[in-house]
């Protein structure tokens, strides 16, 4: 269980406080190991399509709400770092294009790949998610609704979200963060498959209280 009190958020990873519909899902699908991500087939036993859809998203939320992801989906103008998470050091601001300010651009330090000796993470197109895509402090249900809202998902269709989650290099960095950082669970392909099946089953959201 990870508690992120410093930013007013409570994020539960590995534990399960499921109620209602998701309690039923939990009874059907055993919890994942912290470093693994369930395959969509693991949810085939949930006969109700809407319930299965919500359960698929709940599993995918273990990636979406992992520190490697939410640190750059901040709730303000500065990213976070580490697993607590804590504010980015040195202090940086998102600037007008979510890539920093003059003199302190993201790519002033972050390169096109991790710099292992300096422990500086990097990949092509390193940047912050726009403010309307803030995930810090959100529940899986809230992030689910965000992802479906073109005003808060960068104007993407659901199909484009599958493409983004499955192939985007910056998303993929979460599985190879370097320098001893904890990667997000599973694989990018597996994560993309969960998102694809979530959409295929109607892109239903888990109940508000559900956590993974």
């Amino acid at each position: 269980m990870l508690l992120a009190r410093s930013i007013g958020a409570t994020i539960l990873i590995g534990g399960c406080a499921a109620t209602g519909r998701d309690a039923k899902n939990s009874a059907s699908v055993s919890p994942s190991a912290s470093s693994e991500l369930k395959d969509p087939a693991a949810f085939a036993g949930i006969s109700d399509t809407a319930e299965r859809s919500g359960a698929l998203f709940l599993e995918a939320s273990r990636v979406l709400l992992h520190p490697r992801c939410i640190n750059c989906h901040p709730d303000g103008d500065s990213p976070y770092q580490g697993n607590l998470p804590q504010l980015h050091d040195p202090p940086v601001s998102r600037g007008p294009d979510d890539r920093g300010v003059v003199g302190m651009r993201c790519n002033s330090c972050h390169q096109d790949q991790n710099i292992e000796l300096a422990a500086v993470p990097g990949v092509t197109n390193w940047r912050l998610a726009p403010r309307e895509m803030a995930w810090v402090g959100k529940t899986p249900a809230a992030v689910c609704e965000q992802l479906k809202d073109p005003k808060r998902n960068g104007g993407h269709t659901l199909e484009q979200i599958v493409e983004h989650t499955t192939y985007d290099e910056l998303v993929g960095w979460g599985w190879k963060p370097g320098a001893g950082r904890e990667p997000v669970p599973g694989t990018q392909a597996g994560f993309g498959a969960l998102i694809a099946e979530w959409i295929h089953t109607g892109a239903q959201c888990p109940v508000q209280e559900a956590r993974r």
Partner: protein
Amino acid sequence: MSIRFRLNGVDRDIDADPEMPLLWALRDLLGLTGTKYGCGHALCGACTVHVDGDAVRSCVVPLRRVSGRTVTTIEGLSADGNHPLQKAWVDLAVPQCGFCQAGQIMTAAALLARIPHPNDSEIDRSMAGNLCRCGTYQRIRAAIKKAAGTTED
């Protein structure tokens, strides 16, 4: 592997490992020791130089990343030390030990090139990643404003 880039107005070819940090190439291969090694983790700003006009931390920039690009170090900021920031730095006696000052000036120069008359907030945000263990921050900000012509000093 030979990597060509334009350094302080002169084309240079460097035969080196493409993953070598730019800072190493500047200091050890090219003898430009004005740019300092501080932390080696892009955390202090002492190694700041310009690549195509943008301030970057040369301790973490692989040499391959500057291939075909323009690099400016403190030695190339002006022909004879007469950049407005350099003059303001001297006028206000900004440095104490001086180790961080090349990085400070290079970040400030990138700022003024984009925002000629920055306010305090803009200065603070742009300079936030350049540390000074002597604590000369107030003089740094004053010198930037003097160079920008926004003070009467």
